[in-house]
């Protein structure tokens, strides 16, 4: 892990250096694009003021992501096991991705108030879809030779599912998890625009409305860090669970 990560770190450092230099060279005003050093200064100086926003968003993201993934997996499994249901509900799944927040927000507020519920719904809506699509596709791509064997051996549908299709779909599921994890942090930030008192989303809108572009970028910095963290956790889990692949190619 450590040996491998120097390359992306180098690239990122390189980009930051280019950015800093061009900021200085072209004298780009801070309110358009602050220099990395400016952002870092603000990040360090303001830590005490904004850290509660970050922890609040982390919490929200975790709840939302776990809920979203659970729902996504359950939907995928249900639709896979019941092809009739898949036919009937697949269009609804797609539709669910096309309700703009601007419309959903008022409805959610009227139905659920300004509490945690509407925010979780937003994150779930963002997260569940990539997981569900990837899982359904993964389940359908199981090696037919192995399915034939399982059927001949007398496996019940449940056994075919748990012992064959699910492990076989794991790589696809992780592919979906990676997309969802990436979206979950942004989902949480967006959900905070829907009426929250703290969180990175709140911090960012305030910063933006008072023209503190440097703070906006501090917010983005943390969104990115969070996201990379989530992503790293998913990849770690993937490595842990899909061991055999490594051996196979080794």
């Amino acid at each position, binding site marked *: 892990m450590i040996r491998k990560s120097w390359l992306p770190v180098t690239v990122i450092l390189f980009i930051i250096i280019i950015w800093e230099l061009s900021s200085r060279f072209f004298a780009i005003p801070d309110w358009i694009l602050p220099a990395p050093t400016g952002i870092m200064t603000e990040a360090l100086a303001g830590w005490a003021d904004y850290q509660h926003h970050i922890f609040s968003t982390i919490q929200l993201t975790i709840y939302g992501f776990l809920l979203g993934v659970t729902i996504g997996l359950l939907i995928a499994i249900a639709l896979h096991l019941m092809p009739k249901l898949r036919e009937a509900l697949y269009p609804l799944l797609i539709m669910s991705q096309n309700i703009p927040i601007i419309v959903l927000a008022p409805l959610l507020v009227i139905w659920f108030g300004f509490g945690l519920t509407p925010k979780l719904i937003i994150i779930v809506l963002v997260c569940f879809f990539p997981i569900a699509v990837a899982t359904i596709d993964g389940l359908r791509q199981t090696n037919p030779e192995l399915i034939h*064997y399982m059927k*001949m*051996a007398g496996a019940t549908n449940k056994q075919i599912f748990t012992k064959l299709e699910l492990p076989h779909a794991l790589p696809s599921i992780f592919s979906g998890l990676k997309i969802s994890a990436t979206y979950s942090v942004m989902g949480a930030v967006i959900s905070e625009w829907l009426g929250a008192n703290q969180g990175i989303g709140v911090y960012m809108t305030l910063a933006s409305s008072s023209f503190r572009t440097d703070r906006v970028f501090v917010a983005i910095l943390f969104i990115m860090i969070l996201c990379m963290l989530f992503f790293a956790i998913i990849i770690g889990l993937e490595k842990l669970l899909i061991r055999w692949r490594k051996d*196979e190619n080794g």
Partner: protein
Amino acid sequence: MSTLAIKDLSKSFGGDTILSQLELKVNEGEFVSLLGPSGSGKSTIFHLIGGLYQPDKGIIELDGKDITGQKGSISYMPQSPSLFPWRTVLENVVLAQELFEKPDKQKATEMLTRAGLADYINSYPAQLSGGMRQRVAFVRSLLSPQSLICLDEPFSALDEFTRLDMQKWLLSIWEEERPSVLFVTHNIEETIFLSDRILVLGARPANVIEEISIPFDRPREESLTLTPEFLQLKKQIFHTLRGINND
């Protein structure tokens, strides 16, 4: 210990009729072999018995019970090993057992050792040679709980000695537990050495064109294969098969 009776079985894929009005019987504790040209429909017969495909016509009975299209009645070894790449050898061999009862890992380990795979119990299928994978699939079928065993070319990838060893092992298990066995092979010596009865399938659409009862006593010794009676029988079957091929 089961009786298998196939009556008037027909099956076609698309427009091709593969099996037509096939009749076939395996008596309780009997060891029956199927011989036939490549592509004649031997594996298809297994798939029909196993309930994977629905026949176009006909009935398959196990112990007098209609099991047409019903799965899980046989212990099965497919022609290609069909191992799960994410399971170790040990996890693979207990798979069929797992479907019905708590797997007996102790026994599985013993059987893997007997099959010469003691060093590979925790390896993944991709780390095995072709013959090793075939032995894993063989052990898996022996560990299944059903009493009708269907083996589809189980020893095709093995060298003569490993093959002989596996044959003797199979016979010893068979003599002890007396399951009914339906066996597909292309090796005429093997089929004579193992079987009570040989069914020869003709070319398409396949049907049993000759039935040969093997007169040799049991238990059989390896030396049997060198006796003139054995060679005579081998020659006879050889000619039958040549007849099919020259059609």
